[in-house]
């Protein structure tokens, strides 16, 4: 568990700079299809993952780069995945919204809002029961946004988790908007009320503060590991950048510039930076730039996958699908 103030700063800063580099690569056309930038929300991934063990399991969302990096994925392989290269985490088959590294307990980002909750509950349940395995104390974390709390399947998943005391954290990143729809226009009652309805502890924390998130996550993780079941943590946060990089061209208007500027005054990177020495910060920053320079170089110099293998991995058994082009 890397959970010192310097660790939290390093992860927060890494995600920030990774995302800024990724946005540049979108604009340059290296990353096709765009991304959902995590900029502004870094404290949540950093704080929660600092409370986890390598064997713990996470699932993520369309805005998932932060979680995947915070759980330990190699930034170079991650960036190569975003660029659709065969050296990527998923060999270029998943892209931004599906990055996964099962060797690190990263059971994938998921592009359907709210879909990952039940998958996490099943994975955490199984890890605990897996015959002959060492998953006795494994904890699962499902990250999702405020939009997901309107998805029935997520609420069903909370019910299952509470009912069967599955060691899971439901981490809601409430950034105020489901794409363009405000929480006020989408959520009746409260987000924590949904957790409370299933009899699980549900708390709201400052999602801009990595340490506050870590403290809340640690309590929930301890509870889950001890066999006392799931918790819900609502992290109040703000997305600085677009819902998706298409907004950089489309100019969809749903929040005014003042609101964004105001929110940027509360910066998780700066909040955590204030907890370490300037010298330490400079060292970490320099190291991150080196790592990311190498990551970008690795991604752009990596080969594109061979189209002949477009349906490789479609079936785990290696079964081949019929071709679509004549016979």
């Amino acid at each position: 568990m890397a959970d010192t103030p310097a660790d939290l700063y390093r992860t927060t800063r890494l995600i920030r700079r990774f995302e800024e580099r990724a946005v540049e690569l979108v604009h340059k056309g290296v990353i096709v299809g765009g991304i959902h930038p995590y900029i502004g929300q870094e404290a949540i991934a950093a704080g929660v993952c600092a409370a986890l063990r390598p064997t713990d399991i996470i699932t993520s969302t369309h805005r998932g780069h932060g979680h995947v990096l915070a759980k330990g994925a190699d930034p170079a392989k991650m960036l190569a995945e975003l660029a659709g290269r065969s050296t990527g985490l998923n060999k270029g088959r998943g892209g931004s919204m599906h990055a996964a590294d099962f060797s690190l307990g990263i059971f994938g980002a998921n592009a359907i809002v709210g879909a990952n909750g039940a998958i996490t509950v099943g994975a955490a349940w199984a890890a605990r029961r897996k015959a002959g395995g060492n998953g006795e104390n494994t904890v699962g974390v499902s990250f999702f946004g405020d939009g997901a709390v309107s998805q029935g399947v997520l609420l069903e998943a909370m019910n299952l988790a509470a009912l069967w005391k599955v060691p899971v954290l439901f981490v809601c990143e409430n950034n105020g908007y489901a794409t363009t729809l405000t929480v006020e226009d989408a959520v009746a009652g409260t987000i924590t009320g949904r957790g409370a309805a299933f009899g699980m502890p549900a708390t709201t924390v400052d999602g801009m503060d990595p340490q506050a998130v870590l403290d809340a996550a640690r309590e929930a993780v301890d509870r889950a590991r001890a066999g006392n079941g799931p918790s819900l943590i609502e992290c109040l946060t703000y997305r600085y950048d677009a819902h998706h990089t298409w907004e950089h061209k489309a100019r969809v208007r749903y929040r005014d510039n003042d609101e964004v500027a105001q929110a940027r005054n509360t910066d998780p990177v700066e909040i955590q930076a204030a907890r370490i020495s300037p010298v330490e910060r400079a060292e970490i920053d320099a190291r991150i730039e080196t790592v990311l320079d190498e990551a970008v170089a690795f991604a752009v110099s990596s080969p594109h996958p061979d189209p002949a293998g477009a349906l490789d991995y479609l079936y785990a058994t290696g079964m081949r699908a019929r071709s679509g082009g004549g016979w």
Partner: protein
Amino acid sequence: MPRLSYQKALNRALTDELARDPDVFVLGEDIRVAVSNVTAGLFDKFGPERVLDTPLSEQAFTSFATGAALAGMRPVIEFQIPSLLFLVFEQIANQAHKFSLMTGGQCTVPVTYLVPGSGSRTGWAGQHSDHPYSLYAHVGVKTVLPATPTDAYGLLVTAIRDDDPVVVFAPAGALAVREDVDYADLQPVPLGVGRVHRAGTDVTVVALGHLVHDALAVAEEMARDASIEVFDPRTVYPFDWDGLIASVSKTGRLVVIDDSNRTSGMAGEIIATVAEQCQLTAPPARVTRPDGAVLPFALDLDRAVQPSRAQLVTAIQGVMKDG
């Protein structure tokens, strides 16, 4: 020799796999008391950790199974009603099925979805009478449709052992079928290997699921007029194209009887593939549910939209007339 019922065959397959592999577990609605009969005795034998009664949360427990499979287990879900396969289409087609490719082969999702009683159950009306195997074949989920108790046993065992998601449709119309079987002869049946139930030389009738039994009855009735080969693909996806082409290459005529709606149903795919690869003596024919069919409640109406033996006879006579 003991008489093996279709339901008992499914029950035996579940029992054997639960006993053989500690990673196998079964979940679903009302399965402890075995409302469908298929899970009878499993709860007493294997306990609550391996036989899980779920709340009525089909979408969540379907993805719960995906998660458990990603973590190394082999869940088998029983769905009480075939139309629930529409409700969980996202969880199977868009989640479980896509994990292997999207992760570049990092994981497997060995989940079996068992639908004991698919198709019309006689009197259960519009929302309990679908038979959506063509839909699952279309998206590329492995889909099996056993017609007999021995194939039900063998294909369910194979489905559970397969590393991909597999849907097992046990047709309501086949659940009453019994077979004289020596239990020692029960064995896994590979996916994608069809079975010729009756050999013939004039026309190949491809029959899916319970309609195999109708096709065999019709073939017997018409035996004096035509030598009919009855081909049962057993697995609709992957399909035994080689087996089918071998049969049609011999007979030169093709009729398909398929309990799917007509548009984009398996019958259309079977005829298209044969047309691409074989020189037919006569234009092929298919007997299906009508386009867009919703099964009406009243029994005569229910029967009116299901493929019938009379329609099959007419279709066979039609293809025999030509050429």
